[in-house]
């Protein structure tokens, strides 16, 4: 994969952005997320987390179990605020 290849589509982050975070010390998927915002967008890391885990392996020799995943939180998919706060007119 090239340095310019997009890893996190939602936040438009390239492989180079991820590698920079790893060079600055990130050693888990969560730490990359905190440094770059990867996985903080609309899909909440559904695609990029595995790719980041892989890059952590290539760049820093981190095993997938050590790289981990970022924490799953509600909602599983985006929810319209008007449906949630429905009683307010």
């Amino acid at each position: 994969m090239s340095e310019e290849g997009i890893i996190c589509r939602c936040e438009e982050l390239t492989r180079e952005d991820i590698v920079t975070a790893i060079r600055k010390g990130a050693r888990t998927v969560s730490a990359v997320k905190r440094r770059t915002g990867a996985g903080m967008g609309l899909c909440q890391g559904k695609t990029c987390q595995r790719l980041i885990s892989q890059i952590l392996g290539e760049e820093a020799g981190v095993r997938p179990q050590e790289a981990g995943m970022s924490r799953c939180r509600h909602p599983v998919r985006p929810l319209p605020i008007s449906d949630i706060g429905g009683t307010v007119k």
Partner: protein
Amino acid sequence: MMGKMAKETEVVVVGGGIIGSATAYYLARAGKDVVLMEKNELASGSSGANAGLTSTTWCPPGPLLQMSMASLKEYDYFSQELAWDIEFERCGRFTVCETEQQFEEMKPFVEVRNKGGNSLRLIDRNELLELEPNLSPSLFGAVFAPNDGHVNPLYAVYAFADAARELGAKIYEYTEPVAINAEHGCVKAIATNKGEIKTKYIINACGIGAPVVSEMVGLKIPIIPNREQMLVSEEMPPILNRVIINAGYMKDVQPTGLGDSAARKKSTQTVGTVCNQTKKGNLLLVGVNDFVGEDERTTFESFPAISEGILRVLPILRTYDVQIIRSFAKFYIYTPDQKPILGKVDGLEGFIMASGVNDYGICFGPIIGKLLSDLICIGETTIPIDEFNLSRFG
């Protein structure tokens, strides 16, 4: 990055949040030999999961107000002069009043704070809607704080930590203290899961974990985790120019000096309406607060509670059909009087507290770092911190 751990240093800062990384930065800048240790990862505690607000509005006159204003200046310097990209902006904040009574209560509130040096302004509905057209016309008015704003709290922690490292500080993640060795009332060393470091000073900047570290030297500190739940929206075009918080929430949650300071009782739940649009365009919506120990799960009930409040204040969100993409929860570092716990500790030379920052740690981080660095390097602070000493709890 981890490397082999140092055997000896002048200062060990425990806790890799905003307070710890800022303190390490100012100490390193002052030429001190400093180690910053974090049991998990940098910014993995409260500093990494909050709305990133920098606010002077709530601060009663005195050291808290002085500290908040001085901290904004540190953020100015750090982000402008030193060009660290931390998305710090003095965009302003509106504390909005939903009832006439709230609006009336804000008159003495503003007066007291302006006498103490702040520059707040009470504005009526018309002016409010002119400045912030997307707010609900049902609001009565607001307190306008022109200097308040926001920062990306994650970027702030990393920037201070990276800057500290550039100045020679050593940073160890996954490094947890297990014991503190003291002799004749003086700190001598700190033992960790990665080995021991000899040191003259230990700064306890552990947030909700601070009681654990203080316990190692037999000190009890009255810090309680107060869970805060928040929602995050998708990125959207700019709909707000400033930070919005409802007056009722500020009164419930912060020591406002309205005659009911520390109104928040243990075991009560508070629901607020805070909206902060980040640089990327996400809305950070706060929040539901409760005391549930260290349980950091989010609840389904918080979704309608937060959403209803925000739709009342910002009805335009319904028109946009804005989508909520995530919830999260972390902790306020609650103290009984909602003041921080800072400074030296009686009877143990070299042990320094830097915790209990309730919900204002992100705002106060830089100034706390600077003051504690001054305390160590020159023995005094430019803003008095005596009233924040642990000894006040007896």
